[in-house]
């Protein structure tokens, strides 16, 4: 069972009004931004379920924009996120969908990078500011962002997972949770590794250097 910290009860410090519809939305978009390598030239959001129904009154639209621009859930500028986006020259668009989602508080975040590459992330705000990322570029994944999370896009072939976990062991990084996903046999695959220790940039480079078959690696 999950052990609550006292700061889960007295906290988080956040910009209101809702931990699920505001703070959670900021975190969702912030993680999407990190998945896009913090390169956000343009961002489009679609809100589903309760996010779509009560999102405007809860500032969910502003919260998503704020997160994509790199703000944290307690940033006082969340309220002015649209203006901040204009100032930064980042076009943003928000759509409210009637389509029924799997989870009531779902958002799709599509980020276009400076060279035109698209990052398409679907996530859910599961309550109390906690979130779950459920899809990256059409591929089903699952992680919460509560732990340092290593997301690796790799070839679907034997040995890649073993190599990555071996390097992490050498670096003394303990794996808390690990999942592997793929489109189909031999096609594009992802692994998400949630760790107890942070994975530094140096460590990331080491993994890239030592492990064969990795196409892309990022940490959120």
């Amino acid at each position, binding site marked *: 069972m999950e052990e609550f910290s006292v700061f889960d009860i007295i906290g988080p410090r*956040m910009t209101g009004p809702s931990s699920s519809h505001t*703070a959670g939305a900021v975190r969702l978009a912030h993680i999407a931004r990190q998945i896009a390598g913090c390169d956000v030239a343009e961002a489009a959001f679609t809100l589903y379920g309760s996010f779509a129904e009560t999102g405007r009154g809860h500032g969910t639209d502003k919260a998503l924009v704020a997160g994509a621009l790199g703000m944290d859930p307690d940033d006082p500028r969340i309220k002015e996120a649209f203006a901040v986006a204009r100032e930064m020259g980042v076009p943003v668009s928000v759509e409210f969908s009637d389509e029924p989602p799997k989870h009531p508080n779902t958002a799709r975040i599509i980020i276009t990078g400076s060279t035109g590459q698209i990052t398409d992330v679907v996530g859910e705000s599961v309550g109390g500011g906690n979130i779950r990322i459920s899809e990256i570029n059409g591929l089903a994944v699952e992680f919460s962002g509560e732990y340092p999370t290593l997301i690796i896009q790799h070839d679907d072939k034997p040995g890649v997972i073993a190599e990555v976990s071996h390097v992490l062991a050498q670096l003394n990084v303990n794996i808390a949770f690990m999942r592997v996903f793929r489109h189909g046999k031999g096609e594009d695959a992802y692994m998400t590794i949630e760790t107890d220790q942070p994975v530094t940039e140096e460590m990331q480079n080491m993994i890239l250097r030592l492990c064969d078959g990795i196409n892309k690696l990022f940490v959120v």
Partner: protein
Amino acid sequence: MLLSDAFINGESLRRYCLENDIPIYEAMIRREEKLSDKPREDIIAEMQKNLDVMRASVDRGLSGKVESVSGLSGGEAMKLFKYGKHNPFSGYTACRAAASSMAVVEVNASMGRIVAAPTAGASGILAGALIEAGRQRGWSDETLIEGLFTAGAIGLIFAKNATISGAGGGCQAETGVAASMTAAALVEISGGAPIQALDAAAMAMKNVMGLICDPVAGLVECPCIKRNALGAVNAMLCADMALAGITSLIPFDEVVSAMYAVGKDIRVEYRETARGGLATTPTGKAVAQRVKRMQGN
């Protein structure tokens, strides 16, 4: 008893405190040290940050007109605060604490900065009651921080053994739990024993057991803001009762179990979905329509 077993429920917490001759807040700090593997000073410093944001949110809500994103709320905390100077029926301290609690939730609704305690919708109760009580009695930040750890311990037991979300258990799980947390904190910083703090927490929950979550237009405004005012006064009253030597016939842990059972029985219409109660009154529905129409930037 082991520290890891102290937070199973209220009774284990009381026994751990008794065996070690410490207050609840001390047990809470020790648990956090162990859980986070961080030094005590860091944990206290983190709580100080929460206290600072709480105080700023009270002051902001009371000092100027705050308006919510929907336009439904704002400015009422200041009205009550001003009125409270002239012999209010609820009493000087209670009236000011109620106004301070409303202030925080008004700031929350305006997309201002608050500390969830245990949630954003119930964020006014602990902040408003504790800071106002502290101002009246001259409590230092150090003392107020102790109170925040006591409150955290009570909230933690509700989170572990019941629920602290309106979607999970109705308003009793948000403003009810916040009032329980606050009552225990007020008792402990006033010199009450752990059992008195637990009794105060039990009484505060008993007073609002079964309270549904029926937000108009799905927003954290009506009835949330005024229920925070009630929560602050409920907490102060129950702290007074416990300090006066009144006990709860039903022990704290049994109140927690009962509240959880009641929460699960509350129909989904009355659990934050805005599909019942005040949300579906003719006025509630009209407001929801209006809020929906004003969408768009």
